[in-house]
């Protein structure tokens, strides 16, 4: 029985993770993993190039590896839950890719080719020097994305060829085209630095013709410590500019050489993924990537009550809640406020408000969420913060019987004061158990004068008001 149940669960799980979703005439969308709605996650899409119809399974394996390798790298590792990953399989007639220098040509869907522009390891799709047609390469990428995953954020192409090669590109929707080679994940991760974080290249050679040097999150021409944009990461004891030596390798400072030139521009660290392969993103680049993630995704996923203008008429407690994004190893901080005053201890995602704790009138309840990650020290735009505000009108019934007096002959009079927006009923009893309604009224100017006549038959009477009637 257990075995049968296990097999059923396994079948469901496999089907869920790899079941093909929408299909166009050419391509099929697969979900590699989803952590939430595509509008509230960064959506990575991996495209198949050079895989034949029978190699769909191989492609899904390679695509999963490509995504896992990327998201295993800090700072993405901590924010893996902020991503969804999809794969678009499109069959090629032949497997592999063109190698024009050696005379090898393959009939593939996106017409990819090594040896682009005479560089053996430069792997590109058209338009390139072999085929200038947008519609036979990049155009096919764009068509598939529009049809199958319009909400894409990062697009990679995996080429089914073991030869070392790839390319990153700032034009077109695909940020990287890579073979199934060890280097693939390195190129992909570096390119996400450009695409997500707007980070500059930190290597100090090969200035491109016509390059315009501008300040970037990880490249500066400023050497005055207080004005350096990453000064929050620089220790007071760090020499600026920072000498390029192995003893300074762990420091954040000002290392000369960035944006393709060896002098005049500075980078934050001796080495970083924006400078060379097989190293991690430095502190400054990691900070920028985290902020870039939050520039696209807000920390609060949803909140209740869904309406932010509330009127409360009764004393029943109201529950406010925020659902937040969830990093891997830490939780986002929550603080609740009433009328802009922090409520002591109210730091859970839910907050119960007793309306009687506030006076009748207008109030605010505010839920503030922030990511206090150690990866970010400088967030002047407050990207890691989000606040949701509810405007409350509290209008509780608050009645009192005052100015009671006996009036001759046989009359008793009192005044009802307070707040009863829905009106009230005056009830009477002789034993405090059985109550009889005498009259239903509304307050005028906050009070109502009531006179009870013909009381000669009673030795004792009790009065009360009930609201709403």
């Amino acid at each position: 029985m257990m075995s049968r149940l296990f097999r059923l669960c396994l079948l469901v799980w496999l089907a869920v993770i790899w079941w093909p979703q929408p299909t166009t005439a050419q391509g099929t969308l697969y979900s590699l993993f989803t952590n939430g709605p595509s509008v509230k996650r960064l959506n990575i899409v991996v495209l198949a190039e050079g895989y034949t119809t029978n190699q769909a399974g191989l492609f899904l394996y390679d695509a999963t590896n490509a995504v896992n390798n990327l998201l295993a790298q800090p700072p993405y590792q901590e924010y893996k839950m902020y991503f969804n990953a999809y794969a678009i399989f499109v069959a090629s007639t032949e497997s592999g890719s063109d190698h024009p220098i050696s005379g090898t040509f393959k009939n593939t869907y996106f017409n990819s080719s090594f040896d682009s522009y005479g560089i053996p390891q430069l792997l590109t799709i058209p338009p390139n020097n072999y085929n200038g047609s947008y519609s036979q390469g990049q155009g096919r990428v764009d068509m598939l994305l529009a049809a199958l995953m319009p909400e894409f954020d990062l697009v990679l192409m995996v080429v089914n060829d073991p030869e070392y090669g790839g390319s990153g590109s700032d034009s077109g929707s695909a940020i990287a085209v890579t073979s199934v080679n060890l280097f693939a994940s390195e190129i992909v991760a570096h390119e996400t630095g450009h695409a997500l974080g707007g980070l500059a290249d930190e290597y100090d050679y090969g200035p491109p013709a016509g390059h315009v040097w501008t300040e970037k999150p990880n490249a500066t021409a400023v050497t005055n410590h207080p004005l350096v944009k990453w000064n929050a990461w620089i220790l007071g004891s760090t020499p600026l500019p920072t000498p390029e030596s192995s003893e300074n390798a762990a420091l954040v400072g000002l290392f000369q050489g960035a944006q393709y030139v060896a002098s005049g521009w500075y980078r934050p660290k001796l080495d970083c993924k924006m400078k060379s392969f097989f190293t991690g993103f430095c502190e400054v680049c990691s900070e920028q990537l985290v902020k870039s993630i939050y520039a696209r995704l807000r920390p609060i996923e949803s909140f209740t009550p869904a309406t932010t203008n509330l009127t409360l008429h009764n004393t029943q407690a109201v529950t406010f809640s925020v659902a937040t994004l969830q990093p891997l190893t830490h939780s986002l901080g929550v603080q609740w406020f009433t009328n802009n005053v922090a409520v002591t201890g109210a730091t859970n995602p839910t907050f119960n408000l007793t309306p009687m704790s506030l006076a009748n009138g207008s109030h605010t309840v505010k839920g503030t969420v922030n990511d206090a990650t150690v990866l970010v020290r400088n967030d002047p735009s407050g990207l890691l913060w989000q606040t949701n505000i509810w405007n409350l009108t509290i209008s509780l019934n608050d009645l009192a019987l005052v100015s009671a007096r006996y009036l001759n002959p046989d009359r008793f009079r009192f005044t009802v004061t307070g707040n009863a927006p829905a009106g009230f009923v005056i009830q009477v009893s002789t034993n405090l158990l059985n109550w009889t309604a005498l009259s239903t009224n509304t307050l005028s100017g906050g009070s109502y004068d009531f006179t009870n006549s013909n009381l000669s038959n009673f030795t004792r009477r009790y009065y009360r008001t009930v609201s709403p009637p």
Partner: protein
Amino acid sequence: MTTKRALRTSMTTAVLLAALWWPTAVARGQTNDGPKILFLHLKIHPDKTLQLLSSIKRPGELKPPANTDTTEGIHYELRDAEGKSLWHAAIADPERRTLEHADNSPARKMKQLHVAMSEPEFMVRVPARTNAVEVEFYRFTATTTNQPLKKVRLGMVPLPLK
């Protein structure tokens, strides 16, 4: 026994169908009534004019564009009838393709190649907003060295598209 098996098969099928439907619906979060994305397929001609080649509207919602405070590349801006900007994003200049790659040295150093593209075609996405009347395309260029960058209009796509 046959009835039991049929029941089990039906239940298995139901569980599978539910499981398969759920991630698709949740993950994509797309309905016909919700927000839409307008894909614009464009071409830059040698005289620097811009031509809309095709367009398609698809369900979905774009995330806020980041890194728009740049003077690089081509900017595109969605505007309403009063000229108010509804959306602003930028892409790398399609006329100048940058390809980054690793070299063949043992150190695998990163290198860049810049390729001038003639009459490039490209795709951009903008939110399909009912109050939008145009998408304007422009770039910033310096007319002379050391002069402030000037906004130069490339073209405009009127909305809504027929």
